[in-house]
């Protein structure tokens, strides 16, 4: 925990209310996100019990599995969920944009993309497992499932994979999104409880954060946000209702009673989810969000367009794909952290406190200085920035301006309450800087060493050139009937 977030937490305790740790919203919130509140059967890894789903607060659909141990019912449930999710995916593509691509070709990008929101990390894990258990199902032969089931599995897997991608907004967990913007006076573990977290951020009238969070501990008032259910509910309500349904032989009234019981467990979380969406939506959007959402739309366009010709995602990444994916994730992480700090002075303040960035007033400026040591002169303006920040950077460290990241520089010396920076890039092409590019004396500036793009483009061997150190080239995947085989407990 950084000193700044520790301070925000202490202030939250004193104020009895969550404190902002961001001045702008760093995630995209769709106009109509598909909110999913999943529940699973206790004791099972991913046996679905119910999902409340919908893209508007007043129109939830509640899908249930009356006997979650029954495989046929599970996949019937998956088929109805599939229709709901796939319908959302297909109706949230927006207009198709045509962009100039490589070699004069036209590249397509959908104008919008579907966004899924779940209450917490457990919800993401559940969707990932549900995707894993449905994407290989066979639609013919023994144990055939509805044709929509494996399609749902592939989409859920894709959403869960995008969730791993730093800065992606395609699948979000409400607790994570809220914690990105507010600090509470409770522990991180307690922040995982959506009701308690919302209690701190937006306590009901007449209550403060701690008392609202204390109320959230009562599972009768605030049932767990899933996917695990409250054990007392399991024992006293759910188990008898499922048993009654079994005894009735699938009677509609027994099913309705079960459904009503489950509805009491998900409805409070459903309402919390939309309140959380409202809170997030009320924040002004950060400048970098649109750019990251563009990347999300690119990924969505690509996956949607190649869906027909691709196999279900492999159970395991082969060596080259694993290495590539890790590289992509690390690059995205670096870009995401840099962009958040550029967009938000409160995030930048954390970097300044750790000494990775510094801000202050320009006290000295030589905008037209030339470096003439090389073959031809180069424009290298010098800036001296007076700062009280605890700068912990070595001379020679590359930095960039927070206000305009294209303006790049290098630390020359640090000392005497100031930092001397040599500007090296983003000045224009000529030997005189473009107007307004170089800060002048008296300007407030902020430079950071956490820049984007330090990774560059990485080269990886082709799959068939996987080296001996990593077991050699993996065998080509050929779909077989065995793919659908599963050890059913």
């Amino acid at each position, binding site marked *: 925990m950084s000193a700044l977030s520790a301070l925000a937490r202490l202030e939250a305790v004193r104020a009895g209310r969550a404190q902002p740790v961001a001045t702008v919203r760093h995630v995209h919130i769709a106009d109509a996100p598909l909110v999913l509140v999943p529940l699973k059967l206790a004791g099972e890894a991913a046996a679905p019990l119910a999902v409340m789903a919908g893209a508007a607060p007043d129109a939830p659909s509640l899908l249930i599995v009356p006997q979650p141990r029954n495989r046929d019912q599970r996949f019937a449930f998956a088929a109805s969920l599939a229709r709901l999710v796939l319908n959302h995916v297909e109706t949230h593509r927006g207009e198709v944009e045509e962009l100039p691509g490589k070699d004069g070709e036209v590249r397509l990008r959908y104008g919008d993309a579907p966004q899924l929101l779940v209450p917490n990390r457990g919800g993401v894990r559940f969707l990932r497992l549900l995707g894993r258990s449905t994407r290989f199902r066979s639609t013919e032969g023994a144990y055939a499932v509805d044709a929509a089931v494996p399609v749902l599995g592939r989409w859920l897997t894709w959403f869960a994979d995008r969730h791993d991608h730093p800065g992606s907004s395609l699948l979000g967990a409400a607790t994570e999104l809220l914690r990105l913007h507010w600090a509470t006076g409770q522990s991180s573990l307690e922040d995982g409880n959506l009701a308690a977290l919302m209690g701190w951020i937006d306590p009901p009238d007449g209550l403060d954060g701690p008392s609202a969070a204390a109320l959230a501990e009562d599972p009768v008032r605030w049932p767990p946000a899933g996917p695990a259910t409250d054990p007392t509910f399991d024992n006293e309500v759910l188990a008898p209702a499922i048993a009654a349904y079994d005894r009735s032989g699938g009677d509609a009234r027994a099913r309705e009673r079960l459904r009503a019981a489950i509805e009491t467990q998900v409805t409070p979380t459903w309402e919390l989810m939309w309140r959380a969406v409202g809170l997030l939506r009320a924040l002004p959007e950060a400048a970098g969000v649109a750019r990251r959402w563009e990347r999300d739309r690119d990924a969505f366009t690509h996956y949607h367009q190649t869906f027909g010709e691709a196999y279900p995602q492999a159970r395991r990444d082969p060596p080259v794909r694993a290495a590539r994916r890790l590289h992509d994730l690390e690059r995205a992480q*670096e870009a995401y952290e840099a962009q958040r700090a550029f967009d938000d002075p409160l995030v930048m303040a954390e970097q300044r406190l750790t000494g990775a960035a510094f801000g202050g007033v320009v006290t000295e400026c030589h905008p037209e200085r030339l470096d003439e040591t090389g073959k031809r002169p180069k424009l290298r303006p010098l800036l001296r920035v007076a700062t009280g920040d605890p700068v912990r950077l070595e001379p020679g460290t590359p930095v960039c301006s927070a206000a305009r990241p294209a303006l790049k520089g290098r630390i020359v010396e640090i000392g005497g309450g100031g930092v001397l920076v040599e500007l090296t890039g983003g000045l224009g092409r000529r030997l005189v800087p473009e107007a307004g590019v170089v800060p002048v004396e008296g300007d407030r500036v902020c430079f950071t060493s956490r820049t984007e793009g330090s990774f560059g483009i990485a080269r990886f061997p082709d799959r068939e050139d996987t080296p001996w150190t990593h077991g050699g080239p993996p065998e080509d995947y050929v779909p077989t009937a065995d793919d659908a085989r599963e050890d059913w407990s």
Partner: protein
Amino acid sequence: MSRPPLMSVPHAANAETGPAPPETDPARAAGRVVADVLADLGGGHRGVVVDSPPGAGKSTLVVRAAAHLAAAGERLMIVAQTNEQVDDLIDRLAGKHPEVPLGRLSASGYAPSDRVRAHPAVRVAQKADDLAGQTVVIATAAKWATLQDGSWPWAIVDEAYQMRSDMLLRIAGRFERALFVGDPGQLDPFSTVEVERWAGLSWDPMRSAVSVLLAHNPDLPVHRLPVSWRLPASAAPVVSDAFYPFTGFQAGTREGDRRLEFGARGMGTTYDRALEEAAATGWALYELPARHTLRTDAEAVQATAALAVRLLQRGPVAHSEQGTAGVDAARVAIGAAHRDQVAAIRAALGPHGAGITVDTANRLQGREYDVTVVLHPLSGRRDATAFHLESGRLCVLASRHRHACVVVARAGIPELLDAHPSTEPVRLGVPVKFPDGWEANQSVLAHLAAHRVPAG
């Protein structure tokens, strides 16, 4: 019947098992392992792995193996992890074997350091084609990964335990056979993202290059250098027991071979007492009263800096198998876990401590000093996270010295450890890591308890 020669394992020798003693002469034990390694290079294996504990002559081995392969007429690439390490190797190799044509492949922004410029025969280039005539080409792994083609019959991968396996994947196409050298006890490679999806895969890109290599090629010969030439007799058993519990190593010198003396008498302060304890026994634990603090604990930072300055003021003289020499600031290092701690200690050192190296464990890897002062990673903490428990971090900090190590810590770390047992989830297919950081920390603290000097 003659017994096979044992790898020397300290404390494993016992009198009942028979008359044949384990190899006790360290020079002969180490020489035999090096000879075995060089023999294996000609043995038709695709890879050879050499584990090296701290100060066991890893760089010397790399230089010898490089010269050995070059003498056999093989073209050779050497992979190091940082530019610093590359320059170090060039300096050693060019100094010891000036007849071997040597090239340094580097990124466009690289300016040759003094150590490289001291050897004008070494060619520095940005493209591999420009170095086609050089028998040995050295570069960082990141630079090697930018090459699209070209192939070398042999590679030597230095610090292979600090290289991530995805990097090995990217450079493995450049060589046919390779010698992997590294220290399994130091810090594991890390990633800036937390993803679980590859846990348990034998090619997990977050694991170290050596563990992935051995998972796919279990028959490769693995050698262990048995002697630490750096660590004194007072430290080798402690570090060996805590961090290399199953393989072990011994000190290259005996008790009494190394001595640390002070030119100036102390004034009886607690700093003096801690330094005298360290000079006499090789270890001291300067213990501040128990307290929960910020990471940059002002008192601990002050004590760490003051101990190092006081050490220099006492005019220390080191006697060792290499002769007698005064210990100046260049031979003293201060280690800490975090960069902000390092910055705070640097600021606290003042002019009397000018020239003392202060750095994090990551940056101190592979370096050697006469005396070290270490701010314990768990000092003043409320919790023991995986970062602070990582055995490699403490291992690096506790194994940089030739004579003595002074550890600065708040009281109460054993209790903190007891309150925070390792809770990392156990995953299928992931090899259990030894030593466990928790256990290693307890082991070192148990030893330090006998060298405790309470502050104030």
